[in-house]
């Protein structure tokens, strides 16, 4: 019997017990659609008059539980730092010249151009109107990074590698992460509690709503987008390096 088989045999009764307790617990929840949580109710009714944000979810993320989101943003930051450390080039691997070939199909390049531009536009819209309509810094940041990643698919590794540079990405990521803290500290320095909305609530339903929240929103978007592009860049390097070696 392999170790895997033994593990499976031991796991089944354990999972059976876990499942029984889990389903027992879940059956005690209020029936689907009948949970009337007081916090959600309060935020749904108070976010617009209090913070002038029409999107209650973004108001929750960046305001009502803004301090937790800051911690979560640093989980993201730490995870990306870990990836960069693990995937950094070691001495023996050497410096491979990135393959310079570019995508030649005109149709693919043309479609890719529209996809990159369209994706970036949608992403910026998601970020900018994050406090008004569905969207926000986290979602928009991921969308922006995805639009950027399409550059590799549509144009090839050369054009991608020339644009995805550490010298540009690292400051953007750090600025995004620190921007959140700086906005929080600015309130502290002016004698108010951490992350107090200094800039006033603004006009509901417009780009200028939420005050400081919109700046936090952009800082998070920058951090998330830069972090994801760094991840794509590092994994692509790992993928491309053996190909380059194999040819050379």
């Amino acid at each position, binding site marked *: 019997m392999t*170790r*895997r088989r033994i*593990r*499976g045999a031991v*796991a*089944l009764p354990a*999972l059976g017990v*876990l*499942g029984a307790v*889990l*389903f027992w617990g*879940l*059956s005690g*929840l209020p*029936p*689907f*659609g009948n*949970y*009337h*949580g007081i*916090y*959600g*109710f309060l*935020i*749904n*009714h108070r*976010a*617009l008059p209090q913070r002038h944000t*029409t*999107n*209650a*979810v*973004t108001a*929750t*993320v960046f305001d009502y*539980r803004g301090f937790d*989101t800051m911690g*979560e943003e640093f*989980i*993201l930051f730490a*995870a*990306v730092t*870990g*990836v960069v450390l*693990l*995937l950094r080039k070691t001495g023996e691997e050497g410096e491979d010249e990135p393959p310079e070939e570019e995508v030649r199909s005109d149709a693919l390049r043309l479609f890719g151009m529209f996809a990159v531009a369209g994706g970036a536009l949608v992403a910026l819209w998601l970020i900018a109107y994050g406090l*008004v*309509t*569905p969207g926000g810094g*986290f*979602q928009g*940041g*991921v969308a922006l990074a995805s639009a950027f990643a399409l550059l590799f698919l549509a144009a090839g590794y050369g054009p991608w590698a020339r644009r995805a540079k550490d010298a540009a990405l690292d400051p953007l990521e750090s600025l995004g992460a620190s921007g959140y803290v700086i906005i929080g500290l600015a309130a502290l320095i002016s004698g108010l509690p951490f992350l107090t909305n200094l800039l006033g609530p603004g006009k509901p*339903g417009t780009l200028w709503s939420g005050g400081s929240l919109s700046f936090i929103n952009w800082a998070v978007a920058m951090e*998330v987008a830069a972090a*994801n592009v760094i*991840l794509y860049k*590092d*994994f692509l390097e*790992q993928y491309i390096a053996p190909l380059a070696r194999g040819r050379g």
Partner: protein
Amino acid sequence: MNFLAYGVAGWICLVGFYGAIVSKNLIHLALCLTVIQSSTYILLLSIGYEKHGGAPIFKGVKLGTTAVDPVVQSLTLTDIVISVTVIALILALALDAHKKAGTIDPDQLADFHG
């Protein structure tokens, strides 16, 4: 029907755990972890659902209209983004293990001393 969504969440969680336990590939293990994590999204979102409730966005919708719970939605949304980067970290570890030991089978890695 009242508890179907919770049951789905519980089931996905258990399946993910089983996959992780019998996994013979670190990449498969990372995917099982995302499966387990997805069960928490389903659970959170289904708890926050309010009958006949709309999205908790009040642009063009009268304030006070029944809407689903925004708190669990915000938890889910940050969770999804962070899980992506944490999975990237796990995959980077798997890549490193493969470079050093030449395998990503957890059983063979347990025997590897380097």
